């Protein structure tokens, strides 16, 4: 491996039953500096489970309320049960509900209001959750 090789893009999976959110996040990611980011989108948890099982997902942005499910307490554990070990962040228009305090118990790494999502926040999240994590390729380089 050398520095000339093109950097593998970080793949983000957005799980939201509102397609407009996909469009909005895509435009936000376009403005983020740093390593290339790739956005995948699914509208329900079943598709999300399939995606993480397929592999290649580095981070998941999971909408809190996915119809017909109640909230993340039903959906986030399904991703963990599917074997996904990367960061999972809950996004929601309103994160004031008291049950959001319980997010670590359901395999969630962070929560963020949709109105807070901008390029700065995205950059910070990516830096925070990828700083000490080496990709498979990087791990091979050091072996």
């Amino acid at each position, binding site marked *: 491996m050398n520095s000339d090789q093109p950097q593998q893009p970080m793949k983000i999976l957005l799980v939201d*039953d*509102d397609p*407009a*959110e996909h*469009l*909005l996040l895509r*435009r936000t990611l376009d403005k983020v500096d740093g390593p290339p980011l790739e956005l995948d989108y699914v*509208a329900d948890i079943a598709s999300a489970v399939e995606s993480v099982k397929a592999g290649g997902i580095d981070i998941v942005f999971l909408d809190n*309320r996915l*119809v*017909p499910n*109640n909230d993340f307490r039903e959906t986030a554990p399904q991703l963990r049960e599917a074997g996904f070990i990367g960061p999972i962040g809950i996004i*929601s*228009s*309103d994160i*004031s*509900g008291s049950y959001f305090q319980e997010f670590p118990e359901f395999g969630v790494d962070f929560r963020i209001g*949709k*109105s807070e999502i901008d390029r700065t926040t995205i950059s910070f999240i990516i830096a925070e959750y990828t700083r000490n994590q080496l990709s498979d390729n990087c791990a091979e380089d050091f072996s």
Partner: protein
Amino acid sequence: MQSSAGKLIKALYETFPDPVLATDRRGRITAVNQAAIEVLGYAEAELLGMDPTRLEVPGEGGFYPERAASAWDANEGWICRNVRLQRKDGSVLAAELRQLPVSPQDGAGAGLVSMVRPVSETPARETDPADIDQLFPSALESISHGFAIYDQADRLLICNSAYRNMHEAFKPSIAIGRTFEAILREAVESGRYPDAGETPQQREDWIRQRLDLHNNPIEPYVQRVGADQWVQIEDRVTADNYRVALRADVTPLVRARSEAERLGFILEGVGQEIYLVNPKERRIVYANKAACDNLQYSLEELRAMDVRQLNADYSPAELTEKMQPLLTGKIRALNIDTRHRRKDGSIYVCRIRMELMGGTADPMILSFGEDITLRIDTEAELERKRTEFESLVRSLPDIISRAKPDTTLTYVNENYARFSGRRPEEMVGRKFMEFVAPDARQEVLAKISSLTPEAPMKTLERPMVDAAGRQCWYLWTNLMVYEDGKPIELVSVGREITESHQAREQIAHQTRELAARNDALEQFAGMISHDLKAPLRQVRLFADLIAEDVSSGKTDELGVFSAHISDRAKAMEQMISSLLEYSQLAYQSIRPSTFRFSEAVAEAWSNLAVHASEARARLIAETDAELHADLNLMIQLLQNLFANSIKYRMADRPVEVRVDVEVGDTAVSITVADNGIGIAPQHADSIFGVFKRLHRDERLYSGSGLGLALCRRIAESHGGTIVLDSSYRSGARFVITLPRVAP
């Protein structure tokens, strides 16, 4: 020795227990002792100067022995023989006659001293008169009483050991030849007499008094000679001025007398009246102070009265008859309540216990009397209070019972009896568990069993049904009374709390409902916040994107962004309209009326006619039931359910909606079933939430997510429920249950 013996006899004969006669040479009696007077029955004057042969049984002789004349001269000592003498009353006295000639130098002149000892007291063995001198001291030693003789100069001639040892105070000073005064003074000076006084003058006075008694004896007296020793002193002075001192240790007697005096003090001091009555004479022998005080008589007055005169209740004859069983020994004690009459004529009630004191020739009745006037007053007061308490208990609205610890009823008040539909006497004797509903017995028993001396009282609320079948609530207070740690009585008081219980239940119900509404409101607010903020945020973001693209000259996505803004705005409009509709319907007061349910069904279906037609929907509702509810709300409820049935239909089959009504005794059950796509069982409850939608895609299933929430509000506002029948697999089936309300 002969001289001493003569003196001794002379001194002794005064106190000698056997008759002693002294005769002179002429044969006339010159002196007799007291015993001679008593035994022979003559007065002293008759005996003095008498010829002693007159004492012989006629024809038997014997007072003078045949050799008497020579014997007198010969001074041969005691002459003893058995004779028969005749008393003054003619009776014959068999006696041993001992005679001793008296020499001229020993007395006033030659004579004879005769001692008469009744034969029965004559020693079995004849004593040689020659041994008498030795016998006397020996005989004196054998006497348990102290005995001493002082001569005319008051010097001690002889004394026995008992005299020496009679008391420790005297003993060290006693010596033959010492005068009585010398002995006494030494004993006093050495401080051996406790009562002699402290000062020399007191002691001197005491000695003088004592000497006076010694020289001029009157009668025996008792003197304390030690801390706990008493001696009876009896001094006598003989005709020839000899002093005979007799001492008897009377310590046990004095002690007994002290005990008796103490007992007497006790009897005098007790508050109870005590009488000792001679039943034969019907006289009071003794009455203590309490008796005298209460009767107002002195003891002397009481002793003079017939005891039956004191009784104010019974005549003397009646009292005698009443006491007969006691006097004849049929009963050991007799208790009677009677009244005594005081000296001033007043009467008091007393309780008498009489016991016959046997064991003596003259039996006595010991009576204990108690003035029970105060007790009777107290009992009357208690009875009055009991009556007042009874009246109070009767007037109380509470149920009151008393029972043994095993719950056997000993008392029930009128209210309890009335509640149970019985008379009080029918309940007493039965266990109150019989009057407790079977399903509550275990709880009641457990409550009673948990009572302890430390926690003897507990309360329990429980429902009860009265004799008329009325269901009511009672607050029971159970108090177990303990004595020495053992339960003796259970007192139970039940107070009806039906109204307060219902009010409390109502408040609890309202509190629960309020909490549920608060939860729902909080949830509702959360939903509003979430579902209204989401489209607003998107509108803002898409507007920002449009501005960005316009500024950068990009126009390819402007239409998409604009469409999103329009779409989000429409969604908000619909949401706000639905919320308004929800708030208008959900929180309005119901206006119930009685209507045919089929009317509501038809109206609801009619309102959806266009959609029903498009979906080729068919309604099956064959019911003629009547319902008492808010017609408009019922139409709205059915309309929402029908709308869902049409909306969530299977694409490949026409919609079929079936409505069934079942009218029960207390509730009306309405079932609305369709053949649509159905609802997964896990969403059976969440679908009734505000803005809850199971389908996001508006192109397939549009809606605000408020329809079923509104249905639940309408059902609940009628006091009913709506649930999804999760067992139904052919579509969706909702069951609405409403209380059956009479118009």
